[in-house]
């Protein structure tokens, strides 16, 4: 019963909410539009927007020592999660069967385990840091905690199902994934997409003035 629900209708609902939700959020930004900047530019804003999107991946030298922990743990978690998402053998198989129709090389089991450990360490460190640092403790919203816990649960159920010996564990994992997909478009998890226009807007503004963001 639960298995049918999770593999069937709930999956379809989650998929629709996930993609339509994201699309709607993007349209919501674009539809507001920005007024044309009427000041005479020093440089074009386009390279600024592109450069800001690239440079945003690296912390500035001036603050790097102060944010080392956030950057290292952040990269561990984000890269780990991305690699797990697209290169874990069960995921490759699932994506090929249900979404793309074609597959690609998955990583070996040991790489999978190491990646998962790196991602878990990153996520746990980031969350502990969020709770302990006076700044993040002050500015974190309920949404930030819910997002972190949901992602943790998805990863935890995923690793619980690693032995692939029972459908209960697989269904449990898929269920948490569906919860995450439904929650995603309405939450701060949207930063996974919105960082692109956000960096572009700022990068263009600064770029027009001749400043590299």
């Amino acid at each position: 019963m639960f298995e049918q629900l999770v593999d069937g209708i709930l999956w379809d609902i989650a998929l629709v909410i996930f993609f339509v939700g994201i699309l709607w959020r993007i349209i919501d930004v674009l539809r507001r539009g920005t007024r044309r900047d009427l000041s005479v530019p020093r440089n074009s804003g386009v390279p600024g927007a592109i450069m800001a999107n690239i440079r945003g991946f690296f912390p500035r030298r001036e603050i790097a020592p102060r944010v080392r922990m956030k950057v290292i743990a952040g990269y561990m978690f984000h890269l780990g999660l991305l690699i797990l998402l697209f290169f874990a053998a069960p995921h490759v198989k699932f994506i090929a069967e249900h979404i793309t129709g074609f597959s690609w090389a998955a990583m070996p089991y040991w790489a999978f385990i190491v990646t998962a450990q790196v991602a878990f360490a990153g996520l746990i460190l980031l969350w502990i840091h969020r709770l302990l640092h006076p700044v993040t403790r002050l500015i974190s919203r309920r949404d930030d905690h819910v997002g972190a816990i949901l992602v943790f649960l998805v990863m935890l159920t995923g690793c619980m199902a690693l032995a692939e010996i029972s459908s209960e564990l697989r269904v449990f994992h898929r269920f948490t994934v569906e919860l995450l997909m439904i929650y995603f478009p309405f939450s701060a998890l949207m930063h996974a997409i919105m960082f692109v226009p956000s960096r572009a807007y700022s990068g263009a503004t600064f770029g027009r003035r001749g400043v590299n963001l």
Partner: protein
Amino acid sequence: MAAENRHNSGRVRKIVLFCVFSLLVVVTVPLIPYAIDAYAVAGKQASVEKVAALENPAINLWNDVRQRNERTQGLTQVQGVDSGVLINKAGEDWRRFRVEQLVPYGAWFMGGILGAIVLYYLLKGTQMMPGGPTGVRIPRTTLNQRTAHWFTAGVFWLLAVTGLILLYGRFVLIPILGSEGFAVTASACKEMHNLFGPLFILAVVAMFVLFIKGNMYNLGDLKWFAKGGGMFGGHVSAGRFNAGEKTWFWLVIMFGSALCVSGLLLVLAALVPGREVLSLAHMFHGISAVLLIAVSFGHIYLGTVGVEGTLDSMTTGSVDAAWAKAHHDQWYAEMMNDSAAVEAADQEQGSGLVEGGVAKPGQAPGV
């Protein structure tokens, strides 16, 4: 305002403590009768075997196969570790140790410590700060130390819970979940345990590096031990860490390392020559785990409901001057001489940006 905050955080703390305690009680107490049971059953089986051994006519051959008198290796064309052994007696010894000793004694030990703590709490209650909080804050831990602590604590409990399920699940969970239900639970726990295990290595290393300073024993610690750490009254003098804290630190480092090494051997079983190494590793793993879990009850008790104001050092990173004076008088005197640090923490309630005060630009917190 500050009083309200304290009141609030006190309430939150009580709720958290209640949850943690309930969890511990729920996990441990039900194990006790099963452990007693298992002990009795194992005893019976042992006496049956003794009788059978006396009356068998092909006793020499069978004794060799069973490896009763000495370790015998047969000849075989199969190449591999232990392939010349028909019946691995060491395996049986290990099984017996696990079922007859580790399981029941472990349960008694953990349950006993927990019971003693509850009893102590009921008799003595929370040890309050003498004279109440002064409002003067003294920085005690850095953000990195606290991060390492909670990382270790988180990973430790994830491993402890999954490990205990694997150790006691047969007695506790099969009656509730049934065999199939437990098989699924056990598989999930084993995967989680193996995956999170290596993170504990990082945690132990981080704890060692970040907390070694101030945790070396000195002569004054003997006095502390002699007075029982002030558990039964009387004043005990201590520096930054008292002898009890130092002991906990070294227990974590030593038994934590034992857990890491034995755990790695068990995870990488395919690379380990011989089952005996593995059973030995398992023995060490089980004993160390039970010991650390049991002592951690005491650590958690003292850090939370046991002593007022202790938890602050792991949340905000600073402690009240009254707390420091009562429990770490030598360290208190040292810190009060460094008035700049106290002022900074006082102002910021220990934002813990950088040890000993407010951060300066370009001053790296360090990892």
